């Protein structure tokens, strides 16, 4: 007996749907990129906490510059590296609202180093999400502050040479030392289990903001398969083998 599709598409058979806060606009991220997953997690968290009318997001410059197209909340698009300062301005003037910033490695750990460190050091009561894929994706694969030693990028085509280029920067370890941060964690989204952990971390970060505990900083070690010139599957394996030893997952601080 042939099964009619109409008999399957019924409310009682629904096992998954996208967050109602995700817009229907197709994401511009490359297939396999971690950004789409983290964007989705943030939308789900905001919806599940029921705070969508009180959230203001701050998008960065980089691959997630157009992130404001995807989540149904109010947004600011900040200049490169300045999201923590923009977030500070918003939160100081609207202390009852939830503010989160979303930055890549160039934004958070190179051009915006001062803004990142000082927002964390003041203990701005915001959520900071830091996507670390070790490369500048948007501009075409240049070296990032977090590019690993020996890792190739278009501005270090023979691999990062620490004598010439300096060492990869562990921004998350730095902010964990600052008294203003209450929660600093490093997560990933390469497996279903990792996605669940990252979601838990982001929920905790927003709950900390509700409880006025200070800055919550969530790094997501991520893949950039286009920039790394690998398939999505290869990227995940490469990340596990190379990124995780240098950027180990887990909580650095949980107060």
């Amino acid at each position, binding site marked *: 007996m042939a099964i009619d599709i109409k008999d399957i598409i019924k409310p009682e058979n629904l096992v998954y749907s996208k967050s109602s806060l995700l817009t229907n606009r197709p994401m511009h991220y490359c297939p396999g990129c971690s950004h789409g997953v983290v964007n989705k997690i943030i939308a789900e968290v905001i919806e599940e906490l029921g705070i969508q009318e009180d959230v203001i997001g701050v998008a960065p410059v980089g691959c997630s510059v157009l992130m404001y197209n995807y989540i149904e909340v109010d947004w600011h*698009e900040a200049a490169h590296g300045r999201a923590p300062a923009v977030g*500070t301005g918003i939160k100081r003037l609207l202390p009852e609202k939830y503010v989160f910033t979303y930055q890549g490695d160039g934004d958070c750990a190179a051009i915006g180093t001062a803004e990142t460190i000082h927002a964390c050091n003041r203990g701005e009561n915001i959520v900071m999400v830091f996507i670390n894929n070790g490369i500048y994706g948007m501009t075409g694969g240049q070296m990032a502050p977090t590019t690993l030693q020996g890792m190739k990028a278009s501005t270090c085509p023979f691999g990062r040479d620490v004598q010439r280029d300096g060492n990869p920067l562990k921004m998350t370890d730095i902010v964990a030392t600052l008294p203003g941060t209450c929660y600093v964690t490093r997560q990933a989204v390469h497996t279903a289990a990792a996605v669940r952990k990252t979601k838990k971390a982001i929920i905790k970060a927003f709950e900390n903001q509700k409880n006025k505990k200070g800055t919550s900083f969530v790094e997501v070690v991520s893949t950039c398969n286009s920039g790394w010139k690998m398939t999505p599957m290869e990227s995940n394996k490469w990340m596990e083998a190379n990124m995780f030893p240098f950027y180990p997952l887990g909580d650095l601080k949980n107060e």
Partner: protein
Amino acid sequence: MREIRLMKGNEAIAEAAIRCGADGYFGYPITPQSEVMETLMALKPWETTGMVVLQAESEIASINMLYGGAGCGKKVMTSSSSPGISLMQEGLTYLAGAELPCVVVNVVRGGPGLGTIQPAQSDYFQAVKGGGHGDYKLIVLAPSSVQEMADFVELAFDLAFKYRNPAMILSDGMIGQMMEKVEMKPYRPRWTSEEIANLHPWATTGKPKSRERNIITSVELDANAFEVFNHKLQKKYQQMEEEEVRFEEFQCDDADYLFVAYGSSARICQKSVQILRGKGVKVGLLRPITLFPFPSKKIAELSNRLKGILSVEMSAGQMVEDVKLAVGCKVKVEHFGRYGGVIHSPEEVVDALEKKIIGG
């Protein structure tokens, strides 16, 4: 009852900000304007009006805190002096591109580089021609007294919100540091969140179900769409040129010669006019109050019956270019000014008019 106080220009800025209902000040110390934040911190407005005052880690952070606050529809301001204002240019072009209102005070000191802490007017180009990248303008007000330092804070906020554009108060170290009597205005309450939602429907306040989400941004990757947006900005600047030009005339009615000078230089030129009038030379002073929009039409109109114009500015000659553009070669226009932190005397200005314009 009138409230008259003796205060420094920088202190007047701070006091006026609280009184006009500002929501936030973000700044970084730099001479000769540090009294602005010092006064605000001493007055503790967060305990009275609820105004937020925060010392940022840099001018870059300050201007981006303004971007955040302004996007929420709040009245936010910062102040700095020349080197710090240079650091803010990135933020200013983003504010202009995102059409956000805010007030930035530049208490100018001599440049280039770290320069000097003495007064100068050498940031004119940076203030009136945009300053950062892209086609944009700031609304630029030039106070020439401590009273105007106070009054222009409210005016700058009003214009900034009317046009959704950053406004700059272009002062200098002399007006910032000198003390004069000031009549303070009564307190104006800060906007409530309901008022902000009604007055500024574009503001990010958290998205209620009743409206679409608000996005504060200056990015548009479609060149044709971005050209259309740029047309909109240009129309706005044109409207400012038609409606917002402000200036003051001093003995211009029968003048054969004219000084054009703003801020501190205008104060000095008033004395030069008196000296020259005493000698029987019919000279007047036109003081632009708005540097953008510039009183070009007024200067062009006056130039029809003038024998010559001396543009006086504590710079190597910046505003003189706008005076020349306004006059269009109809009469002789020359520049005079001491600079690098040196202030010209009224006698030096008299001498310059006699040599460069009357005798030249």
